């Protein structure tokens, strides 16, 4: 039953119509005209007055309610705006902070260069130069490491110690490499290794490892190189001069005792010589003892030949001996024919 207040001429409301049935319609119409002023009239118009007051009060109440709502909305709106503003302030502040940080970092990076004019250089050029510098340094380091590797002894620091690498070679051919993992503590220990078991590693370590590492490494390197050299000689002999050997080479694991039967002519069947080479020195690639014996059914002149061969074995490595033998045989044949 709320009537909009701004309609004074609306004098024929539905409610009024209902009342007009019961009371004097003149009173009502008068009252409806004076609804804004709302004078209090007693008497027979009291009931209708009460009604109109009530309606008026209702209208006023409605108006007040609406006004309150609107005020509330406005207030809320203001609060929201204030909140948004504060948020914007906060974000702006953060942005400024990050900006300053970024510029500080950039300036630090740029400040690492020695050049005075930092601002004129682009970041890409800086990075490219740094890259090139690093690569050059790495190449240099790699070359140095390669040089060390070629010397036969190289190493690398590990977490607990060092890993040493001994490379063996014989007359220009690189052979196997052996590794040692050392723990650097007191006392220095070998953690693991790939040295074969017939090299007397334990004895060498006992003697030299604690006192003089350099000597230990050089002795071990000598042993390994000599072993690899002897093994290589034996294999080369079997590969390059198979026709001269009767059967195979009889040796041992350390290749320091070799026995074989051989002949001087390439054609098969004639192997009059029996050689026994003893390599007494574990670090040498040449035998300390070389005995060449002729078989019983060999001609008499073979004795001298055997002695000559024996001398040869002392002087040269095995493949060299046999190439010398073949060379002399050829010259003999040539001179004979």
């Amino acid at each position, binding site marked *: 039953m709320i009537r909009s207040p701004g309609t004074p001429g609306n004098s024929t409301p539905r409610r009024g119509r209902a009342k007009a049935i019961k009371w004097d319609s003149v009173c009502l119409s008068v009252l409806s005209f004076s609804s804004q002023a709302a004078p209090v009239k007693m008497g027979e118009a009291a009931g209708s007055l009460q009604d109109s007051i009530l309606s008026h009060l209702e209208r006023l109440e409605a108006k007040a309610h609406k006004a309150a709502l609107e005020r509330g909305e406005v207030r809320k709106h203001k609060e929201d705006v204030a909140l948004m503003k504060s948020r914007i302030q906060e974000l702006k502040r953060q942005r400024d902070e990050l900006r300053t940080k970024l510029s500080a970092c950039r300036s630090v990076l740029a400040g690492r260069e020695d050049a005075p004019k930092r601002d004129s250089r682009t970041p890409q050029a800086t990075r490219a130069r740094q890259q090139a510098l690093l690569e050059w340094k790495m190449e240099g380091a790699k070359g140095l*490491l390669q040089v060390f*590797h070629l010397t036969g002894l*190289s190493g*690398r620091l*590990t977490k607990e110690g060092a*890993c040493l*690498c001994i490379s063996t070679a014989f007359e220009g051919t690189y052979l196997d490499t052996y*590794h040692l*993992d050392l723990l650097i503590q007191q006392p220095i220990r070998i953690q*693991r*290794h*790939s*040295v*074969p*078991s*017939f090299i*007397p590693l334990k*004895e060498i370590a006992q003697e030299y490892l604690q006192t003089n590492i350099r000597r230990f490494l050089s002795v071990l390197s000598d042993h390994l190189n000599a072993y690899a050299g002897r093994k290589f000689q034996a294999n080369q002999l079997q590969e390059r001069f198979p026709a001269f050997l009767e059967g*195979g080479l*009889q*040796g*041992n*694991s*350390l290749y*320091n*005792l070799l026995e074989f039967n051989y002949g001087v002519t390439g054609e098969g069947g004639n192997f009059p010589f029996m050689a026994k080479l*003893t390599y*007494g020195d*574990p670090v040498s690639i040449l035998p300390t003892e070389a005995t060449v014996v002729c078989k019983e059914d060999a001609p008499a002149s073979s004795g001298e030949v055997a002695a000559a061969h024996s001398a040869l074995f002392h002087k040269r490595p095995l493949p060299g001996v046999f190439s010398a033998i073949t060379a002399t045989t050829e010259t003999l044949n040539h001179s004979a024919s």
Partner: protein
Amino acid sequence: MAKRRPRGTLGCSPPSKVFVMDETVAEFIKRTVLRIPRSETAKILTTWQFLSENQLQTLNIHQVKENVAEEVLQLCKENCATMKHAADLDIIYNYTYRDKKLWAVYQMIRGEGDENDFFDLVKFKKKFKETLQATLKNVSITFKEYEDNAIWIRVAWGTTLTKPNQYKPSYVVYHSQTPYIFMSISRRKSCMPMLCQALLVATSYRDIHEMDLRSHCLDSLKDIVFKRYSQNFQTHHPRPLQEKNSTLENVDPRIIQEDKHKKEKILKITRETFGDGPQPKLEFAEYKLETTFRSEQKGILNNKEPFRCMVKFSSPHLLEALKSLAPAGVADAPLSPLLTCITQKARNYFKIRERKGALSESLPSH
């Protein structure tokens, strides 16, 4: 070179110029030939070098094996085969099929000041034979040398009353100038001390003990003990990249590997632990635990007594299987050091006791 006739087998046959092959020898050769698979018969007989080329060519391998054996026997009779030749054939057969036996590794300890630089094969054989025959008369010993400096020794055992039993010999493989002996495991434990004694005398070592390393693959045992397997040492010279790095993986751009970093890390750790190359072939690893049972709920078991149990890992190729555990996601990398130390410690029998400050592993008493 007729073999000493056994008592009573051939009665009183006159000392004849006709060679009559000993029945035991004949039977042994026949059985050995029957064991050889048909495809390898020609090869093994050629390696034997007892039958000549012509004889081998007359042999018809493509018949029933019984007949082949008979023919071989006939040829052997013509060539006057003795037990020595038969034993030689047996060694060749067992060398070719060495992976059928279970091998154990023994380590010898050198006496002080005994640097025996020159290993003389002849002396070794002589000393070995003498020592063994001094304790036991009825043994037959055969030697054979192979290219990798391996000496194969075959010993057939008999007692004071019986002849050597050729069907259950022991095999010993020795590499000169190394302290390691590889023995085939046979049921006969009583012969072990004599064999060990003979070996020690022949090689001039002081003591011998078993190394708790057993496998069927003899070559792998040699690799482990001679350190020929690929250990991963840190060097400045990386080995050439393996093939697998450069193979094209199926490059489907729609497939993204979420845990690519994690996988790479696991691969790196696995590589560091196991090395790059192929692993030696072991079939099992046995761990005897004597530790107290630990659980989160106290009081499940009385914690004072050790909880004895045995854990055995077996696989056709154990180390490759362990290597692939972490990359397959089955286990965390790095693996437990008990598993990864197998090759380095050269053992696959472990006994784990209670931690008294450090986990103690000791030799189990066999």
